[in-house]
């Protein structure tokens, strides 16, 4: 049985929980938890015998550029009781120096690589993570490529079939273009 937000608030004193709807068809409403009580809520969901959400399936970040925050989404299932998903969400400001959320690796070991991935691609720092390093990008890389305001470098060497943005940037970068593409560029 999945606890309601009132039950959760009663079990974890001080927690602020808001219900966020999914698409009407998917019917997977999420529980938006405040950053301070995330670990306590997670521990409760894992250990409470009536729900036993022992399997943290999916961890990911979503960058809401217009709304000014990055959301970390956890999808929890129960292997013991075979129910789920319970969706936990937590929000952090987009600014790199304030973009912190507590790590849930201590609760579910399976978060380890996925939190590293969210750190790598979104720049979210997971406090308490045992080994927070880049995982998909190389160590010397400085930016976080999945952020919506990320600008990829204009290093097009060869662009035979350029379009819109790429076309402009290729021209600006002085890339080589094939004769057919030059037909339109000339005008």
């Amino acid at each position, binding site marked *: 049985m999945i606890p309601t937000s009132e039950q959760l608030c009663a079990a974890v004193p001080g927690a602020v929980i808001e219900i966020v709807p999914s698409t009407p068809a998917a019917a997977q409403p999420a529980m938006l938890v405040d950053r301070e009580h995330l670990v306590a809520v997670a521990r409760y969901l894992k250990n409470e015998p009536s729900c036993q959400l022992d399997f943290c399936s999916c961890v990911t970040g979503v960058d809401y550029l217009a709304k000014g925050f990055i959301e970390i989404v956890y999808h929890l299932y129960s292997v013991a009781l075979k129910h789920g998903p319970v969706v936990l969400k937590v929000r952090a400001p987009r600014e790199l120096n304030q973009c912190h959320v507590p790590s849930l690796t201590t609760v*579910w070991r399976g978060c380890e690589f996925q939190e590293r991935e969210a750190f790598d691609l979104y720049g979210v720092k997971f406090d308490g993570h045992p080994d927070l390093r880049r995982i*998909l990008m190389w160590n010397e890389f400085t930016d976080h490529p999945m952020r919506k305001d990320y600008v990829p470098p204009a290093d097009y060497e060869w662009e035979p079939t350029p379009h819109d943005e790429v076309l402009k940037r290729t021209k600006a970068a002085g890339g080589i273009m094939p004769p057919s593409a030059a037909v339109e560029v000339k005008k």
Partner: protein
Amino acid sequence: MIAAPSTIPAGGAITTQLLEISIGPQHPSTHGVFRMDVVLDGEVVRALKPVVGYLHRNHEQLAEKMSWLGSMPYTDRLDYFNSMSNNWAYALAVEKLAGIKVPERAEYIRVIMAELSRLQNHASAIGFLLQDCGAWGTPLLYAFKEREKILDFFETVSGSRMMCNYFRFGGVRVDLNDEMLAMARKIVAEFPKFLDEFEKLMTTNEVVLARCQRVGILPKELAIAGSISGPVARASGVEYDIRKVDKYGVYGQLEFGVPVGAVGDVYDRYYIRVLEMRESVKILQQVLRDIPAGPVQAVEVKLRGFKIPAGDGYGRVEGAKGELGFYLVSEGGPKPYRYHIRPPSFINLTVLEDMCVGHKVADAIIILGSIDIVLGEVDR
């Protein structure tokens, strides 16, 4: 780093310094461009850090820049052994978000495709495992010979052997005609014969037993806590199969068992795959017997200008390697706002270090082989 020459103390025991070596990325036993930073004490692994990302192409960001349908061919390239299951996971997630109902015949065809790709994936995974044990080529090519028949079937149906791009939101692209169904029935009828022969080669083979038993044990508790899914988790005794739990598609109407291992070592992970193939054959026999007539595509789904109401959702299937899920966020437009993949091979690597520490280097190779990773999916 080169260790200093060993010194032999008076007691006779040899002491060595710890040696840090890098296995991969260009190494045939790492199944692609995967690297393990291993700290060795003599020949024994003391620490192991997986290093991934050599094949990273930011598939998730590419998907945010194209239409919902445009990502379908890219999902083929995640785990290129199972493009059909990957297609299904994505189609299922989109259908869940948009509330599309799939015609029954299409659901049956989807099961046929997913189970056939499970057969060929498990067969080749075992072949590769044996390759890692040192049986160069022979068992792998027996598996590939069988896989070839399934790939020929995929080519006949979808046009491509591995990059099928066969599923569409609300159905599949091409209907199966009688010849194709006959081809599938022939494959399914012959498969148990191949499995019997393959098992004779390996299941009781003393070399396989010596190499694989009691190696790389993954305890059940760690498997659950580490979010391990698929055959790896089931070999450790976790009785969890999304086909049974979620009952997506027509799996709720089919009879099949979920084999579970007792020890959780490399041998169990090998044998679980054999048992799963036998269950898949059972599923295929039922599906090919009961497939109904009818349309294969829900008519209300447009090919161009397809949109999903704003919101998010998560859809998952039991892929051959584990739980393959898609978390999608829509803003109501023609493109996904966020498109996240839960890749089973990547998350199954979380516990690689725990499984390898204390074993020899050669064992680390077969432990990695028994997880069955595909780097297209790990790195995305």
